[in-house]
């Protein structure tokens, strides 16, 4: 049944999130943009007690046997994307520093055993702020994750995995491994001749010898966000830190379960990234409209198109693209809540919103003329921040490829 109504519980939470976004994040937006490797502790310290309590309740649920199963569709992902949109409206870089298990936690939740969930995720229910992260990208393996070279070799005598290699562009990698008692889920191959089938996810905890943060990137935007390179030199982790089965199934390399499990986390994470993109876009759009209103320019939605000025038409176009991107995002999110497969829709919203947010924020800088380009206001920062959404969590092009394969009924064999 087509229904666009949002539960009151969520709209109330959004009110709270908006207060945090306005009073905590915005107040420090420029500061953390200019102090790249400092951490936004004001935001972190506000979020952590709330998230810790949520994690504790979730942990109780998933370990007392009642599990995440429940009757009928939920609203968890709808709530998530709406919160992310609002927090990113506040500041996308700070939002990315949210202390939570993040994609690492999602992988453990998706593939991990109960024992693993307790061992790895309990830390997020107590004590000081902690971060989880996922490390997939390597210098030679960006969109092509099958080119991952990092190795995991089993030492049968000690029953440990020995990790060697380098991971780059890991969001919150330093926060997870160096600056808190967190963890990173890394992807490594146990058999480089097996292609995707040999690739497995492993949990690496903070304090593991042989693991070092080798670089903290300096970026175009989202400068408050931690983007780290991690080097593994004979880093040893317990056998039980592997997520899923250690078996390498050579039968069908393209459709192995472990790899598919990892790709499945994208079905949620892509709408979340799309939501973040739309939050930044809305920030720029609202600011532009407010500034123009001060000059007496407001959009009259009842005017015919031939009566619109070029500026009014631009605003309309910005709003229309925001609306299109946001609705595509909400659709992908609500499909997960209803237990429906959403791979196509997740990639659709990701591909669209990356472009839309990039364009909307660029337009905002343009429309505000000499004001938009200065660092006295945040629009130029939002333009720099927005661009990442066209790149990470699958570039625009990778997501278009997924959409194209899906609508054409193709695999990677027909459409490279």
């Amino acid at each position, binding site marked *: 049944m087509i*229904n666009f109504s949002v539960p009151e519980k969520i709209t109330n939470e959004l009110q709270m999130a908006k207060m945090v976004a306005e009073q905590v994040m915005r107040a420090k937006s420029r500061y953390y943009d200019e102090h790249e490797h400092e951490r936004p502790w004001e935001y972190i310290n506000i979020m952590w007690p709330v998230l810790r309590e949520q994690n504790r309740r979730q942990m109780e649920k998933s370990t007392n046997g009642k599990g995440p199963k429940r009757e009928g569709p939920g609203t968890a992902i709808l709530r998530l994307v709406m919160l992310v949109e609002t927090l990113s409206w506040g500041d996308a870089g700070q939002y990315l520093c949210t202390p939570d298990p993040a994609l690492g936690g999602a992988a453990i939740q998706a593939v991990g055993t109960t024992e693993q969930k307790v061992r790895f995720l309990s830390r997020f229910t107590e004590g000081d702020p902690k971060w989880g992260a996922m490390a997939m990208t390597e210098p030679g393996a960006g969109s092509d994750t099958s080119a991952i070279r990092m190795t995991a070799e089993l030492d049968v005598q000690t029953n440990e995995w020995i990790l060697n290699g380098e991971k780059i562009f890991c969001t919150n990698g330093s926060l997870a491994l160096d600056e808190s008692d967190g963890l990173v889920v890394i992807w490594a191959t146990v058999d480089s001749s097996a292609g995707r089938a040999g690739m497995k996810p492993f949990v690496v905890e903070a304090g593991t010898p042989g693991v070092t943060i080798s670089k903290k990137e300096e970026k175009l935007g989202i400068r408050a966000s931690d983007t780290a390179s991690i080097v593994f030199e004979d880093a040893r982790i317990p056998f039980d830190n592997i997520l899923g089965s250690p078996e390498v199934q050579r039968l069908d390399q393209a459709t192995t379960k472990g790899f598919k499990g990892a790709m499945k986390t994208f079905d949620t994470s892509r709408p979340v990234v799309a939501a973040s993109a739309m939050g930044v876009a809305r920030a720029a759009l609202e600011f532009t409209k407010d500034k123009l209103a001060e000059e007496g320019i407001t959009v009259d939605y009842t005017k015919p198109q031939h009566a619109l000025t070029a500026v009014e038409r631009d605003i309309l176009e910005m709003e229309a693209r925001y609306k299109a991107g946001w609705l*595509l995002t909400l659709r992908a999110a609500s*499909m997960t809540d209803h237990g429906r497969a959403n791979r196509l829709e997740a990639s659709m919203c990701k591909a669209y919103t990356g472009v839309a947010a990039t364009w909307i924020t660029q337009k905002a800088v343009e429309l505000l003329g000499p004001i938009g380009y200065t660092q006295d206001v945040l629009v130029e920062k939002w333009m720099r921040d927005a661009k990442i959404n066209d790149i990470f969590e699958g570039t625009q092009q990778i997501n278009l490829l997924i959409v194209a394969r899906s609508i054409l009924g193709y695999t990677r064999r027909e459409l490279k």
Partner: protein
Amino acid sequence: MFDLELDEEQKMLVDSIDRYTANMVNKAYRDADEEGQLPEDLVKAGWDFGLLPSSIPEEYGGFGEYSAVTGALAMEAFAYGDLALSLSIASPGLVALPIMLAGSEDQKAKYLPSFCVEFPPHVTAALTEPNVLFDPRELTTTAQRCTDGYTLNGVKSYVPMANSADTILIYANENGHTQGFLVPGDSPGLEVGEREKLMGIRALPTYSLSLVDCHVPIENKLGREESLDFDLILNHHRVALGAAAVGLAKAGCVYACDYAKNRVQFGEPIAHRQSIAFMLAEMAIDVDAARLMVWETAWKLDQGEDANREATLMKYFVDQMVLRVADRTVQALGGYGYIREFPAELWLRNARGFATFDGLAIV
């Protein structure tokens, strides 16, 4: 609860219209465009889905309640088959639905039952004016109050099937407000012009008409003494047109995918190339985004909420989307996209109309 999936009833409606398209429309629409005429049995079979009667309450002879969302789903499905046909099937609604939305009690009682029969009355509506600066909220056709009614003056265009209409809902400007008038087709001062020759929707006969001191009794003013909430009617029009545009674009998208998978060049289907495949992917995203905007506007209207902003953004987006997608459909077909034996050129001609169409459909 937030959900963007059709329920069972809605799926059944769309499925049955899709079957009608596959069995009847696909064979007929190209010839209809060439001949400038829709086969009567085709329109009749479309009417038999009972979309309009199922929107009219029981007290007026119908068997349902009005839903803009359901209307949008049906309109998309009909236009997926053929745009001219969808507009033809929806034409009784051009009068029935404004009466439902804004009519006085006696107008509802007088007109609505006549739409709940096997053969609906010949009715149509006239909103568009042949004017570069056309603005539905500031019409150049005027309505002047006189002692026992109104006097209408002006020129209208894009009036579907005006030549055979018993009643025409004519929109006119009364002191800066757009008002509606239910004008009998044979009223003195009302003259239907020549059939228009348009770039697209050629199977749908449309006419211009002129009004010279055309007298309308007071009881024929839509809503009687109430001032018309024209924005509400316009928004409903835009939902219907938006849904039709989505249907047309979807047809192009599906056809282009199918074509690209079968057209072999350089030893493999052209869909194997990213330059084609990415274009198709963007078309699919375009269509889905537009559909969601149509649904959101329709849903808001069904909730009785103000939807001016949503309707404006949606129409703005959809008008561009449908042209973009139809153009890319032609492009995907290469030379064959330009040949009339293939449907793409027809879709491009039809798609271009949406930026011009206002008040041509309401569901």
